[in-house]
């Protein structure tokens, strides 16, 4: 039996396998390509890019935590113009499918970044989808994360949607740090997002008990890794269930949070994810995006399941 791992992200976007990198955990491709061919990854999700170059925060930028880590990078990156000039052509040159993650300090900046990206010569050939990282701070709204507020979330999407051809689906990336994630999901989808990515990191703090001060230079950090997988599965479950119940518009979900093995990827899929990203696990095993896809295929094969896509959300039926 051959297993068909095709992942369907909607709007005609089919990926050869459902295992993607997570934004910010694989840079923009060159570094991971030193380990294996990134064109073989379902899709390569790039580090969230803003308009201008970003230095990011001071260090320490990370703290290891039990089965996870905190990070406080501050979206260090080249800015969209350098990205379009250097990174996108390189991704194209190796034949990678890219999902480009965009960010901004204002909804207008998101739109500006999207516009510059869509205008890039390599856009059509390389960019399968755009991930709108609304889990970042909205400077206009006291630094509150967009995705903590339905109105701010919707506003970003409303400004980005007109900039992007409909054949390139927009995935809004949500934070789990909210009282009801289905409210934010609805706001983003109603404003034109064609899919959701869940979850971004959880807000956390680590205290340096020797120096008796916050360990991270930026005080708070984002908690990621296997430690948070139960929260990711819950968020995906809740939003998928709301879609099934007709309470919010139906759209594909990309699952992310603590995936380390093929079985973990299957778990998120059964909860409702149409594809799955691998983030922090890359730091433990840089070959994990490839390995997880292989393990997932092997699992399906061993259980006699011919098509990955048939498994999406199946745990809701049992």
């Amino acid at each position, binding site marked *: 039996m051959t297993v068909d791992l095709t992942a369907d992200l909607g709007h005609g976007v089919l990926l050869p396998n459902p295992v993607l990198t997570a934004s910010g955990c694989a840079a923009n491709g060159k*570094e991971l390509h*030193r380990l294996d061919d990134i064109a073989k990854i379902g899709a390569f999700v790039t580090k969230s890019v803003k308009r201008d170059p970003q*230095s990011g925060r001071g*260090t*320490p930028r*990370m703290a290891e935590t039990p089965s996870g880590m905190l990070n406080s990078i501050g979206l260090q990156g080249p800015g969209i113009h350098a990205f379009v000039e250097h990174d996108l052509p390189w991704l194209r040159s190796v034949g990678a499918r890219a999902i480009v993650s965009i960010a901004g300090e204002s909804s207008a900046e998101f739109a500006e970044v999207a516009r510059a990206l869509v205008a890039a010569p390599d856009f059509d050939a390389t960019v399968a989808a755009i991930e709108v990282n609304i889990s970042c701070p909205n400077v206009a709204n006291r630094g509150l994360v967009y995705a903590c507020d339905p109105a701010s979330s919707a506003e970003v999407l409303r400004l980005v949607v007109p900039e992007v051809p409909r054949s390139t689906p927009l995935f809004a990336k949500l934070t789990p740090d909210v009282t009801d994630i289905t409210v934010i999901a609805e706001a983003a989808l109603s404003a034109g997002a064609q899919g959701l990515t869940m979850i971004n990191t959880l807000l956390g703090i680590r205290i340096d008990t020797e120096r008796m001060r916050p360990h991270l230079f930026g005080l708070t950090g984002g908690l990621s890794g296997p430690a948070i997988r139960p929260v990711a599965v819950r968020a995906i479950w809740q939003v998928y269930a709301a879609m099934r119940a007709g309470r919010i518009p139906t759209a594909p979900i990309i699952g992310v949070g603590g995936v380390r093995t093929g079985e973990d990827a299957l778990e998120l899929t059964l909860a409702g994810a149409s594809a799955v990203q691998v983030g922090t696990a890359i730091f433990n095993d840089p070959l994990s995006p490839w390995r997880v896809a292989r393990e997932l295929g092997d699992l399906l094969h061993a259980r006699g399941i011919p098509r990955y896509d048939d498994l999406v959300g199946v745990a809701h039926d049992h």
Partner: protein
Amino acid sequence: MTTTAGDRVHSVRAEVIAAAAAGDYRHLVFLAPEIAAAARPGQFVALAVGGDTSGLLLRRSFSIHRVDPGTGTVEIVVADAGPGTRWITRLVAGEAVEVLGPLGVPFPVPDEPTPCVLLGGGYGSAPMFWLAKVLQDKGCHVDLVLGAATQDRLFGADLADRVPLTVTTDDGSAGITGRVTDPLSDLLRTSGATLAYACGPMPMLRAVTQVCRPLGVSAYVAVEESMACGIGVCMTCVLPVVGADGVTRMSRSCVEGPTFDGARVRWEAIADGRVAVPGDCLGSPASLAALNHAAAQGSSR
């Protein structure tokens, strides 16, 4: 002077061939032929810790002490500094460990014979013997200074059989009482060295740079920043470094380092276990504010 930033990184399950105490440290030898074949002094490896049931996800980085491409062995020297390194120091011959490498940019080696001074602090001595050999093979005169807090934390004094050696300890338990940088000026003058290489704690690297700079001596330093990935994808290991274009960037010490030209490192931003972003750094909040201000001025004209 070339770098290997674009070369292949190997991820291997390596068998531990030997493990033995070396003062306060543990000296580990493992079999990783791909890494042994490709590595050069100044590069490092990253080891996964804790085995199958581990709650510690991140790899731990170690300078490569030396390699033997013939036998395929790679050696490291490990201090017990916390739960991850403790796990490593308990490995015994026959066990296996996940190793990633070779990582980072090696020390640049001159094409012409050049007198050099090499300085190692604590386990920072580990790569210096191999580097010394590579330099000597190029015809360079090499002086070696090893320093540590105490004799037990001095690594490799017995390994420096073919290199003139100066030893310092903070407490005087071995060699000269003082810092590893104390004998540096004299050594540079007497040997006529125009190149220095250093590996050790950040304050030492800064001091080495400060001694070398006024004397016109290039100091290459191997820094040790906290790393989550070791391969350039996470952006946690940065420090401010001035580029060839004169612009300061937050540079990843795992792929753009760990070896840097000390003169290019913005040491003043590094203090008390923290690294601040200099105001003139590319993309710093301060520089972006200035940019926006200029743009606003421009549009108002």
